[in-house]
């Protein structure tokens, strides 16, 4: 009897919160990544924490900008990227999503 009552309660609760009674399904977006220049390294590390949408949204950026951004991922967000791979990712970003310059932007 007690068990039945409990079941009814739970069912009641489920109806009340029907909106979230089951997990939501998050769509996956296949943001395009430029091929070549070791895109697999960028894929391996950058996509651990965020979609490629973050990169596409920035527009073209300078080498110092991308270098600083990769460093921020390592220093602040603790991305486990070796020095060599940081360089590879920076080069890839500059080549496909940036430009060479000496200024910060």
């Amino acid at each position: 009897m007690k068990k039945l009552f409990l079941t009814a309660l739970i069912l009641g609760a489920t109806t009340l919160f029907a909106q979230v009674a089951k997990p939501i399904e998050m769509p996956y977006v296949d943001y395009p990544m430029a091929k070549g220049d070791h895109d697999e390294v960028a894929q391996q590390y950058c996509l651990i924490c965020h979609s490629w949408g973050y990169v596409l949204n920035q527009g073209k950026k300078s080498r110092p900008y991308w270098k600083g951004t990769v460093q921020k991922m390592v220093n602040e967000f603790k991305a486990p990227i070796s020095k060599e791979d940081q360089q590879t990712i920076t080069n890839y970003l500059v080549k496909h999503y940036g430009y060479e310059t000496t200024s910060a932007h």
Partner: protein
Amino acid sequence: MKHLNRRHFLGAGLLLGASTLLGKELPTKPIAIPQEYVPPIIAFPEKKPMIAVSDRPPLLKSAKGRELFTQPITPNDEFFVRWHLPDIPTFVDLNTFRLEVKGEVNTPLSLSVDDLKSKFEPTEITAVLQCGGNSRKYYKNVGPATHGVQWDHGAMGCAVWKGVRLKDLLEHAGVKESARWVGLNGLEKPAMEETPDFFREMAIAEALEDQIIVAYSMNGEDLPYLNGFPLRLVIPGHFADSWVKMLTEITVLDRYQKSFFMDVAYTVPDNDCECVVSGSDFEYKRKPIASMKVKSVIGYPSSDTVIKKGSKVKVTGVAFDQGKGIKEVMISLDGGKSWSAAKLAAENGKYAFRMWTYEWETKSKGDFSIMARAINRIGNIQPQVDEIGWNAGGYQYNAVDVVNVKIV
């Protein structure tokens, strides 16, 4: 085309200034004009199809653009979305979900959503939620494009929030003498343990202010999942960064805890203008952003609208500030030479969008810049486009809003 219009109204003087500022930015090699990436429009749970800047973490803005700001309340299914960390639970079980109030309190609390609804006095407030980086793409009018998601005006909305006063929760738990700060944390988690959590803090005096609520309802419904179901903090008049979503922990602290999301992200230069010479990177002493700045946004028409000569245009938009109240919204149709007052709709509480309209009889053909400029009751006024102080993070953009239209 937009460039030409902008130059047209800013005038030659600024152009000179701008080229000096931008001089050091010129790349050493000529580059092709970068094509802006256009993100896809996708329906996320409980949302209409929205522009998906990112899916992980989710960053969404309405596909309607400015049109969203022709109404006083932003619908839940079009409300912008911005998370910081990739691991967000896709299911919250209200039977086990608890909000903890702990730390420097006499009686720690562990409350279900039902407890909040049944044991505390409900309160309601209409308030603007605006990302600190909203509109930051327009900083490139005065300097280099800043760091961060290049939002247009899409990272804001206004909703009716219902919930429990944070003050009531803190008083129920009994704040100890030693309390100085209140730490806030929710269910979004990083992919790696070492990554800093999305942890936010506010001074105890502020946390005890009447208008701050732990909301369980948005526009009369449960909060949409992507806007922080089941609970989110609401800090009227403040930028969105401390409106923690899926709020689970309120920790009263005896001292400030340094953290990435308080001390590094969401910061502006710690000086009077909260700005630096454009182009300088983050090499400055910083402070967290907090109160919003007075702002107006044109909802209609949008840029590049073509209007037939002789038609009456009802220029419409919203204005808001940190909660002092909007005093006036001024409209210019001649590039800022002359201004006339827009008609303000009734105030919907001091933290909400204030709607305004301006009837424009289009008498001559040509290109026109419509500008909107708000002033609040304590005399804060939006800076002109070329006057706004730049910061590397691109936060708190609030310059005069501009749309360019063509009368034919």
